[in-house]
């Protein structure tokens, strides 16, 4: 089983027919939409019905808001405004629904590893159950109607988070990105928008939502992902033979195990190297899941929320180094 794909997400955009889209909806209207959707979830037959939290953005601290973005549960757009916005989360955080982001409903299923079919299956069922209690804006010709025409049709964005250290190092990602566009897909950095995203983590997702069925879009994405996995693994194998790579990976683990202060940026780079090392068998005594958990735990706002107190950047660097040492001991 390949470790190149770190997580899979399916997101569906839906709107209630009765209300204008969020950009033209009054504050009172937004609150009504929140209440309508929350009560529809409670009354649905879905696994979410008895087991969810509702967080109103206005009640959250800055750190709590940002931590939702760090955990890939909310978008930066969602937390940019608190009025009339809420997020519904299952206890395990696999299912989430942003209410009144760009659309009334942004339903998301997040799964570890590479599981597009599994994630879509859950999303599809949840969507169908919600549809029983909510009248969705749907048109025979245009499909699900969304505030932005880029999401029309299926309203589905399927994405995989890829760890591509070898393709990044060999500068292949930008070449690949150009070709992906022709296939209706897009790739961008998960952390940071630059050409060399932090930790070599990328988000690959479908771009076209109209005129292509959910299954066809998922199959297309699956196909391309499989090809990328293949290319990445071949490139990793080639690189792992060089003493320079072996040195870099061993040093990275060494620093993580002994540093007393570490910034997020440095930690991300080093964890990425270690992940590469585990994948190629150069590091044998660390589990890849441990690294993946660390990657999410060391994000700044997530640290503040977990610690339940405000931390200055240098306190964070110290705590981060301690935490990593502890976990990797």
């Amino acid at each position: 089983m390949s470790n190149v794909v770190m997580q899979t997400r399916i997101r569906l955009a839906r709107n209630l027919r009765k209300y204008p889209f969020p950009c033209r909806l009054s504050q009172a209207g937004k609150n009504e939409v929140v209440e309508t959707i929350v009560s529809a979830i409670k009354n649905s037959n879905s696994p979410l019905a008895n087991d969810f939290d509702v967080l109103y953005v206005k009640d959250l601290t800055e750190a709590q808001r940002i931590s939702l973005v760090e955990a890939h549960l909310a978008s930066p757009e969602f937390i940019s405004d608190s009025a009339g916005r809420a997020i519904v989360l299952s206890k395990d955080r696999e299912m989430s629904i942003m209410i009144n982001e760009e659309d009334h409903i942004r339903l998301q299923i997040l799964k570890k590893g590479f599981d597009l079919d599994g994630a879509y299956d859950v999303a599809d069922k949840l969507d169908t159950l919600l549809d029983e209690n909510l009248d969705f804006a749907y048109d025979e010709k245009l499909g699900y109607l969304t505030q932005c025409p880029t999401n029309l049709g299926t309203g589905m964005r399927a994405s995989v988070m890829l760890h591509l250290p070898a393709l990044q190092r060999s500068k292949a990602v930008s070449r690949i990105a150009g070709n992906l566009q022709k296939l209706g897909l897009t790739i961008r950095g998960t952390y940071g928008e630059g050409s060399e995203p932090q930790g070599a983590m990328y988000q690959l997702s479908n771009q076209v939502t109209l005129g292509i069925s959910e299954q066809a879009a998922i199959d297309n994405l699956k196909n391309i992902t499989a090809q990328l996995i293949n290319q990445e693994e071949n490139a990793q194998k080639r690189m792992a033979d060089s003493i320079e790579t072996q040195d870099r990976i061993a040093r990275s683990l060494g620093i993580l195990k002994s540093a007393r202060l570490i910034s997020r940026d440095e930690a991300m780079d080093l964890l990425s190297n270690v992940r590469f090392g585990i994948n190629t068998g150069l590091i044998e005594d660390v589990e890849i899941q441990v690294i993946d958990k660390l990657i999410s735990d060391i994000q700044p706002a997530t640290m503040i929320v977990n610690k339940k107190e405000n931390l200055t950047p240098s306190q964070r660097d110290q705590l981060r180094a301690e935490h990593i040492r502890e976990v990797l001991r």
Partner: protein
Amino acid sequence: MKCQKCGKNNADTHIKRVVNGQFEEHHLCSECAAEMGYTNVFDSFSHSFADDFNSLFGSFFENALPARTQATRCETCGASYNDITRTGMMGCADCYKVFADQIMPTIRRIHGNTTHCGKNSPASKAQPAEKAPAQNTKSELDVLKEKLDSAIKNQEFEQAAELRDKIREMEGE
């Protein structure tokens, strides 16, 4: 229909607008439309001619523009086409009907397509359940046919052959 401006290319952009209280309608090719400031009316969400016109003179002419009422605003949410191009956002579900003519070219540019194929909202219960799959197949077939046309136009013959086989297979079902 040929472009009303150059008379050469096919008109693929339908423009309706109000200038100085006059309602105008144009059928243009994309190049002539671009020359008139309707380049990226929607896809880059940049300022269109209509926008500039509005921001410069909008308030000044407001009272002199009786035509800009029902015809140019969505009755449900009050959005005008200018609101939509300015923000890149539709105001409500009905805007897709009210501004259908204006936004279809944009939708086609974004998706290369204007017909949904995929999940039907189960709540569009008006439609009998057993009819749904048949409709699905039909729209998928239409999509393939459209793709075949464009592949032939672009002389992508290998792809065209593949599409043709797929279409035959589906029609044979």
